[in-house]
């Protein structure tokens, strides 16, 4: 064997042994994860998942209970609506519930989803690659201007007191922390709302490869948006307001 062959032989041996080491190390780590499932992180995460499942089940139960109570309340209030004198009042009650976002509503609309750039790197990617509160507010303003009549953000109904702000990398809506993707559902003229998003220059910029915000838009022939009361108690958002005619 000449000198050159020997050198190549050594290099190949080293490379093969490193590759073998990588596989072996990986195998060991997998084995460790498999056999040491009671690792402290795994236990903590498992506990949190269980706690989350309990909270979700509680939420479902409370939401169902609320639906039953709302239905019961409507039935009781309707008793008097058979009286012609209170028929108009009952109609106004229903109209204001509709305008205030306190009833479920359905209609045609669009679903707009905004998500951070895939594998966002804070060092190399521009700040716009992350969806900010301003991006969500901008999108909503665009949709209201295009004729949207009702809207939700990640399932929560927007109302006269809706507030969206930013804390660190996440967005707060009505003081609830939201995680991306941010899904905006809007009932209204679907064509006009879709055109508004598609032709908007700021959205075109966000879609560019170097920014890479992931935007999806779909038209929905029929969608239902939940009442604000399914997620929040509206009375706590109007306790500072004194009606002027009562003063």
């Amino acid at each position: 064997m000449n000198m050159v062959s020997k050198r190549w032989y050594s290099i190949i041996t080293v490379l093969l042994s490193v590759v073998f080491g990588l596989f072996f190390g990986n195998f060991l780590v997998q084995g460790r994860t498999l056999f040491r499932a009671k690792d402290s992180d795994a236990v903590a995460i498992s506990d949190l998942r269980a706690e989350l499942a309990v909270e979700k089940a509680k939420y479902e139960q409370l939401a169902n209970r609320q639906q039953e109570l709302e239905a019961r309340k409507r039935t009781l209030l309707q008793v008097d609506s058979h009286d012609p004198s209170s028929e108009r009042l009952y109609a106004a009650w229903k109209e204001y519930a509709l305008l205030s976002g306190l009833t479920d509503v359905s209609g045609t609309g669009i679903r707009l989803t905004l998500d951070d750039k895939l594998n966002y790197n804070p060092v190399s990617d521009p700040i716009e690659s992350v969806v900010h509160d301003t991006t969500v507010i901008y999108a909503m303003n665009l949709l209201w201007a295009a004729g949207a009549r009702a809207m939700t953000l990640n399932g929560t109904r927007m109302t006269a007191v809706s507030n969206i702000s930013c804390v660190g990398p996440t967005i707060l809506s009505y003081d609830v922390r939201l995680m991306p993707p941010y899904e905006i559902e809007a009932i209204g003229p679907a064509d006009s709302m879709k055109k508004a998003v598609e032709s908007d220059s700021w959205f075109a910029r966000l879609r560019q490869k170097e920014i890479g915000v992931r935007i999806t838009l779909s038209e929905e022939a029929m969608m239902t948006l939940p009442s604000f009361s399914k997620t929040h108690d509206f009375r706590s958002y109007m306790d500072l307001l004194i009606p002027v005619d009562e003063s």
Partner: protein
Amino acid sequence: MKEKKSANNPSKLTRYTTILVVGIIVGLVAALLMKTLNASAVSDKSYQDLQNSIIEYQRKNEELNNRNVHLYEYIRELEDDLASGKGGESFLRIVEEKEQYAIFAGLRAVRNKGVSVTLTPMSGYKIQDIVIQQFVNELSALGAQAISINGERKVATTEIRANQDSIIINGVAYSRESPFDIKAIVPPSKIDTYIVPYLETVAGNLREQIGNDALAIAIRSESSVTIPALEEDRIAYQKELLIPVE
């Protein structure tokens, strides 16, 4: 001579075995390091996400629970009214609840302590919609329960957007060269200690961005602010695209 050479140089087998062992150790360390870093990053993120989700659900559950308690009491009162034959009581309850909905929707004029922000453009400067939006969003995030811009009540469907020389609010055009007066009812206990100083900071940042000569910003604490109701001819009253789900 040959024996001496062989004693100084390890055999080929020993040499290759050493290379093999070192290679395996290097590979092993690299694999363990990568896995550990990756696993720790993933578990930190999952942990944080899960904690956030739990807090979010706990908050929602608390609100729903409060609402259900209130509804339950309300239903009991309605049932008592019906059982005792007080039909008029139910009538009054519908009136009361209708008014609550109307206030929440912004269909009634309201008053209380609050703040006002006046934006006055200097000669030639046209106010940008984003400046008004920023103050409105900040006020909402600060807990404002009612906001008006030039007397236009902010409701769920209110848009604030520039269109050439105007800014459109609730479908009404306002000149970008005229002052804009934003009023809000906010938590009274925080007005002087937090809200006004915070808004001054926002104004200071804006002045730095657009220049001191472009826009005058005046922020005042108000002992009584009246926020008008939404005008009945505004687009927010159009509800033909909404089907109530009974």
